[in-house]
């Protein structure tokens, strides 16, 4: 069983992390809507489950700290502690600490260091205030409750009754049912226990790896029902647990009798034996039940009766059922796979694509029809496998976005601004590696928008805007890339100040007037800051250039739009995947180049007539539209003479369009991107290389940078023109 233990521990750690994440999100929701009991319940359950599962592993530091948090949450739920911003902030910190505890105690098996212990002490003190402020009151209510309960026809037993039945697979799943009994004994006292072996078949039919035993337990404990239930939470479907609190109604026991697999009379006997019921109580309960179901009652009366009792019960039962169903569905729909395995798979698929291309090339040269057909089927399948494998790595960006709720909350408190984060497009999927790497740049941009973009409430009101600032995070797919937008409704960028600063630093010549777009993008230059005051969040001029560098490293681009007084929009464009793309193979002279297919819009043949004209003026009239041309032959200094004809591949990127002039169109090609070595990192216009079926190397064209280059070139030309006009 020790083999499985590690696995279960890993599951616990992953689940606990998810739960804490959920708890954090719910706490933030609760802050905006303190009256929502469902959310509070969800938070409580999360803390509860963590405590319960930690108990199974004996992680005492986690149990004891979570216990206090849970106590406070319980008081919040009972309305004994008011939900205030301060308390939520405290609970958020507690969540962070629990995360730390799990990382240290559960994952690394170590003890807390000095700072963490200190922190825990402080948190405990602060929690203590909420724990005790109405202790007297709470004891009074409990007593009141117990008195109240005893009045009605309830059982005399002051013990919990726990009934356990295990699924067939419980032993095979590596769970030891006896460990629950031992754990129960450590948290309270098992007063009576009856082992039920009625379900064990005769020897020939008995499978020794199936658990046939069940237990009826009389248990003495101060714990709450949910505490006890949590002990069994971890086994989930492998265990049928019924917990009946002390002094419950007899009806609950009768219910239990119906739920369990054994016959009612045998169960009645068991219940009496385990001290849960007296003979008298059992008889009374059965009588009552018989009365209830007597068909002699007038229909109306039954309905009234049912109307009075049933709805709540039925609904509770239904909810429980759907919840279980949901959990089951969730579990059966997901398989946790180590990311390394996926990476390995993608690498293999990459090799498969290359090898497949080699095979089909050979097949074509053989001029064997049957062979060609076979290879074409294989390449079709390889393509599907490739798409499937890449889709495996796609994750929705929503999780990353949601994490920012907390950041926005904390930062807006720190800055004394009221800022709301609106998220849309959270379902948009992109490659896991990209998601991981985009987090930091996004965080920086958000902080920047909050610090510099959104004004203080007073300023906003003076400007006729609502005091509450709005940040909008949006994501969507657009021609083979994902676009992430960060929109704020703040003051926008100060065009003049950026221009002044840029001139001061010599980035822009004094007599040149760049476009707005260019001015705004200057803030991505290294060491550029226009902030009048340096805060501890941002404004030091370090950062935006790092953001840009990080995004460029992901083969993405970033640009910025701004409208004075209305806000700014930062738009990040990222490729969907880093490993394999659909490419369009073109030839220039002897060499081949790959253009990402997503960016190709159309192909046009360059007629003899056009060839003569375009050589000089470098643009083409494409159905009345001016299309700037990039001659790849010139761009990459291909020495060989021009081929018999030339073609134009029209590519688009964002708002820009350009034509790439090539000799030969060679068709679609699945491209496995091989990064270029460090030596070529400064190379512009090339984003990587790939290996063709023939074994030759083809360069992958970096369309964005080529397009940008040409745009830059054109603007410079315009500026030169302006200059010469001014000089005259």
């Amino acid at each position, binding site marked *: 069983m020790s083999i499985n233990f590690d696995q279960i521990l890993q599951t616990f750690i992953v689940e606990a992390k998810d739960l804490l994440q959920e708890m954090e999100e719910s706490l933030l929701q609760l802050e905006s809507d303190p009256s929502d009991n469902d959310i509070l319940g969800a938070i409580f359950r999360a803390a509860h489950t963590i405590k319960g599962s930690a108990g199974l592993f004996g992680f005492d530091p986690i149990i004891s700290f979570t216990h206090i948090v849970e106590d406070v949450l319980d008081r919040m739920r009972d309305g004994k502690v008011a939900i205030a911003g301060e308390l939520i902030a405290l609970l958020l910190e507690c969540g962070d600490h629990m995360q730390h505890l799990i990382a240290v105690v559960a994952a690394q098996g170590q003890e807390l260091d000095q700072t963490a212990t200190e922190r825990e002490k402080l948190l405990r003190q602060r929690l203590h205030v909420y724990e005790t402020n109405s202790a007297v009151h709470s004891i009074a209510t409990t007593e009141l409750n117990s008195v109240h309960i005893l009045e009605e026809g309830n059982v005399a037993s002051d013990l919990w009754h726990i009934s356990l039945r295990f699924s067939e697979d419980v*032993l095979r799943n590596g769970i030891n049912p*006896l460990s629950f009994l031992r754990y129960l004994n450590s948290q309270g006292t098992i007063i*009576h*226990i009856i082992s039920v072996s009625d379900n064990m078949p*005769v*020897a020939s039919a008995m499978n*020794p790896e199936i658990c046939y*035993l069940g237990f009826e337990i009389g248990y003495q404990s101060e714990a709450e029902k949910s505490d006890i239930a949590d002990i069994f939470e971890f086994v989930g479907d492998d265990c049928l647990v019924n917990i009946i609190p002390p002094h419950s109604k007899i009806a609950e026991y009768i219910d239990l009798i119906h739920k369990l697999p054994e016959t009612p009379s045998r169960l009645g006997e068991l219940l009496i034996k385990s001290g849960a019921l007296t003979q008298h109580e059992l008889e009374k309960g059965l009588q009552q039940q018989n009365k209830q179901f007597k068909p002699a009652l007038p229909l109306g009366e039954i309905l009234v009766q049912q109307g009075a009792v049933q709805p709540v019960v039925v609904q509770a039962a239904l909810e429980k059922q759907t919840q279980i169903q949901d959990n089951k569905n969730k579990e059966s729909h997901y398989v946790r796979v180590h990311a390394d395995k996926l990476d390995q798979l993608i690498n293999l698929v990459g090799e498969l694509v290359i090898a497949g291309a080699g095979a089909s090339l050979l097949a074509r040269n053989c001029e064997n029809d049957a062979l060609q057909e076979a290879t074409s089927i294989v390449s079709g399948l390889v393509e599907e496998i490739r798409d499937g494998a890449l889709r495996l790595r796609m994750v929705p960006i929503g999780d990353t976005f949601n994490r920012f709720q907390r950041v926005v909350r904390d930062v807006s408190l720190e800055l004394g601004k009221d800022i709301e984060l609106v998220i849309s497009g959270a379902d948009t999927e992109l490659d896991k590696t990209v998601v991981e790497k985009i987090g930091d740049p996004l965080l920086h941009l958000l902080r920047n928008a909050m610090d510099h973009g959104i004004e203080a409430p007073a300023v906003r009101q003076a400007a006729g805007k609502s005091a509450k600032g709005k940040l909008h995070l949006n994501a969507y797919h657009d021609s083979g890339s994902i676009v992430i937008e960060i929109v704020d409704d703040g003051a926008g960028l100060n065009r003049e100040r950026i221009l002044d600063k840029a001139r001061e630093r010599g980035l822009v010549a004094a007599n040149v007037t760049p476009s707005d777009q260019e001015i705004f993008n200057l803030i991505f230059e290294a060491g550029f800051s226009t902030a009048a005051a340096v805060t501890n969040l941002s404004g030091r001029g370090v950062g935006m250039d790092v953001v840009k560098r990080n995004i460029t490293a992901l083969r993405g681009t970033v640009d910025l739009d701004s409208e004075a007084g209305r806000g700014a929009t930062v738009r990040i464009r990222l490729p969907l995947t880093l490993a394999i793309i659909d490419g369009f193979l073109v030839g220039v002279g002897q060499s081949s180049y790959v253009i990402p297919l997503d960016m190709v819009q159309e192909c046009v043949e360059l007629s003899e007539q056009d060839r003569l004209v375009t050589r000089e003026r470098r643009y083409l009239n494409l159905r009345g539209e001016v299309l700037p041309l990039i001659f790849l032959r010139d761009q990459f200094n291909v020495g060989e003479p021009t081929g018999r004809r030339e073609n134009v591949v029209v590519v688009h990127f964002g708002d820009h369009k350009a034509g790439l002039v090539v000799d030969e169109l060679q068709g679609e090609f699945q491209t496995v991107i091989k990064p270029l070595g460090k030596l070529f990192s400064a190379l512009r216009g090339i984003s990587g290389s790939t290996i063709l079926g023939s074994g030759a190397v083809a360069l992958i064209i970096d369309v964005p940078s080529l397009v940008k280059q040409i745009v830059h070139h054109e603007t410079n030309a315009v500026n030169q023109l302006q200059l010469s006009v001014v000089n005259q």
Partner: protein
Amino acid sequence: MIRHKTKKGILTVHIEGHMLIRNAVEMKSELMSCLAQKNEVELNLSLVNEIDIAGLQLLILAKKEASLHQFNVRLVEHSNAVIEIFDLCNLSAFFGDPLMLSSSKAIPQASSA
């Protein structure tokens, strides 16, 4: 692992080592073959050093099998591991065999309450 010998018409079976889920399948077939003659059997548990719920089930099965075919299976010289699990599940009364007090440690007689 199981060793057995016949003495005065009674089959004595020594169970040694562990009675755990991982050897439950072999343990069951060995144990059942000992019961096949449907004659009185004495199970000596003194050398059982580890037992879990799967092992416990086998003992229950043996007992049930015996009562079904009306012969006797007696458990003798329970080891501490066996006594611990009987106590935990309150099964001493079910098996009905007297528990010997081991000399090393006083074991409270499990009550049948």
